[in-house]
């Protein structure tokens, strides 16, 4: 029988149902995996007691013959962007060092109500600003994956949900929460050979999730496969009156409706995603994906999303603008770091605290955001970007006239080495070229592992769906998953 730590959400669920093992055994297994994974620097805080308590509750419920929640007995990793009551939450930033929320985020409490336990808080790019996890104030996460060139150089797990990607791909946690603003679930999922899902904007409540860019932030699952993502998203999602942008809609039973037969489905291939100097391996993988979907019964159509090339620049105006305002609350008055030089006044305290507490990338984005909103530049930058965003969204609407889903690569490359791009912001931003457009349009999208590159590193394919049509995205993902037969796992070197 497969080791417990090899199991995902569905596997743990059926094992507990069948009585093959108890939730407590599952929790203890993963707590041990977490303890042994220190070299990856994936956890900022470990919460074994939380995982154990949840497991015991599950075993008790089972003993009482109660029906178990969707996530019963599953100990998950929690991205440190989610505020967790009584557990330090920093968004991997020095400015929140020591901050212990007095409240539980809606997403994490939904998961706990469904029976999940928490193994700990996961490292990430500071305030979710980054694509390699190198902007964390507490050191970067190291990917469990290594190139097959024997070089053993440390690779990035991607970002911003790098800790989540690392622990799921390393089988250190069966699943983890992520958040996606411009690709922060999908790109790390692709880099580490796991499945990551960003739902329609408004499906998951943002209440209690530390804000980066309010109009883009969405929580989602990062897990072994499509089914696990469906189960976990059902537990995370749902209407929340505390979030004005939350969608007041019932949560569909995505898992029950999973169906990889795509007969009658039209898959669009956006020509603008064939960016120049895209690695041949990525292009080949994309072709492979097209064949798999044909096999599953779908018809392939070419579509055009003419404003694609403007998505990244628009994103790098809108996201920093919102962030510059969202991060104003970190001022050293009510929580977190306070740096009060001798004789400093209030405004000096703000400047000193924020200088000491924010990392370089966060400062860079706050500065850009402040500039594009400042007097005289607002219309040229921010208003123009929001208009282009409208056009990008209309591009998708037009595409939906001729297809139901879009298939694209998730990222323009496989995982890169730590330090390789960290001193070139623009090169780093280009990582999100395929994921940002659907974020700007608020559409559901997922990354499914579909193959390895020449160096033995995972590559992912992205499926983008219509607003609220998560089901079709899951189904197409499942069709690829069944055919790609992706079984590669990182060698355990840590």
């Amino acid at each position, binding site marked *: 029988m497969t080791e417990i730590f090899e199991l995902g959400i569905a596997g743990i669920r059926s094992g507990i149902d069948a009585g093959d093992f108890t939730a407590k055994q599952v929790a203890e297994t993963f707590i041990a995996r977490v303890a042994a994974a220190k070299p990856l620097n994936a956890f900022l805080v470990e919460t074994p007691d939380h995982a154990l308590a949840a497991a015991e509750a599950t075993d008790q419920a089972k003993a009482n013959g109660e029906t178990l929640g969707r996530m019963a007995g599953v100990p998950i990793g929690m991205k440190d962007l989610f505020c967790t009551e009584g557990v330090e939450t920093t968004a991997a930033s020095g400015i929140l060092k020591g901050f212990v929320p007095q409240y539980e985020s809606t997403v994490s409490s939904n998961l706990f109500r469904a029976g999940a336990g928490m193994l700990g808080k996961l490292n990430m790019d500071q305030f979710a600003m980054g694509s390699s996890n190198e902007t964390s104030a507490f050191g970067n996460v190291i990917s469990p994956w290594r190139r097959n060139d024997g070089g053993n150089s440390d690779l990035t797990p991607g970002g911003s949900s790098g800790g989540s990607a690392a622990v799921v791909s390393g089988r250190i946690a069966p699943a983890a929460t992520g958040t996606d603003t411009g690709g922060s679930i999908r790109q790390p999922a692709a880099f580490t050979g796991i499945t990551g899902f960003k739902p329609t904007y408004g499906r998951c409540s943002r209440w209690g999730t530390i804000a980066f860019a309010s109009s883009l932030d969405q929580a989602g699952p990062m897990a072994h496969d499509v089914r696990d993502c469906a189960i976990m998203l059902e537990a995370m999602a749902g209407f929340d009156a505390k979030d004005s942008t939350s969608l007041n809609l019932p949560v569909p039973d995505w898992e029950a409706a999973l169906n990889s037969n795509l007969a009658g489905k039209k898959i669009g291939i956006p020509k603008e995603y064939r960016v120049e100097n895209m690695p041949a391996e990525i292009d080949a993988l994309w072709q492979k994906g097209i064949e798999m979907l044909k096999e599953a019964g779908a018809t392939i159509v070419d579509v055009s999303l003419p404003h694609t090339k403007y998505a990244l620049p628009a994103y790098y105006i809108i996201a920093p603008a919102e962030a510059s305002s969202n991060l104003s609350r970190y001022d050293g008055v009510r929580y*977190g770091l*306070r740096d009060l030089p001798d004789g400093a006044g209030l405004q000096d305290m703000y400047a*000193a605290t924020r200088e000491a507490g924010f990392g370089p990338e966060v400062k860079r984005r706050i500065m850009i955001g402040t*500039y594009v909103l400042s007097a005289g530049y607002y219309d040229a930058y921010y*208003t*123009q970007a929001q*208009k*282009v965003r*409208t056009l990008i969204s209309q591009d998708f609407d037009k595409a939906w006239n001729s297809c139901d889903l879009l298939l694209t690569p998730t990222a323009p490359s496989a995982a890169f080495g730590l330090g390789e791009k960290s001193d070139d912001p623009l090169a780093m931003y280009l990582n999100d070229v395929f994921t940002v457009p659907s974020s700007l349009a608020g559409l559901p999208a997922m990354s499914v592992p579909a193959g390895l590159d020449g160096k033995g590193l995972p590559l992912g394919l992205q499926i983008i769906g219509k607003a609220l049509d998560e089901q079709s995205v899951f189904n197409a993902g499942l069709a690829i998953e069944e055919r790609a037969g992706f079984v590669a796992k990182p060698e355990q070197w840590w």
Partner: protein
Amino acid sequence: MSIDKQTVKKIASLSRIAITDAEADAFVPELNQILGWVEQLGEVDCSKVEPMTAVIANKLRLRDDVVTDGEIRDRILANAPMADHGFFAVPKVIE
């Protein structure tokens, strides 16, 4: 629109981020590179386009006017770097 060191310092001050002269110098080319790149948006003709307001069609809900919160001072002050007599404390402000 290329920005100079003075602008960088003004933005830093508006952002309440203390920066040294050296840091300001370093920011100039960096921000100019990024701003130069995003300015390609200017190419797009948006004369007939409305700025995006709600990414997914949704209506702003109105809350009922009832008291459902408050009376949690301990939780409000729990993380305060400096609290005194039930207040947050900050360096004296001269108005």
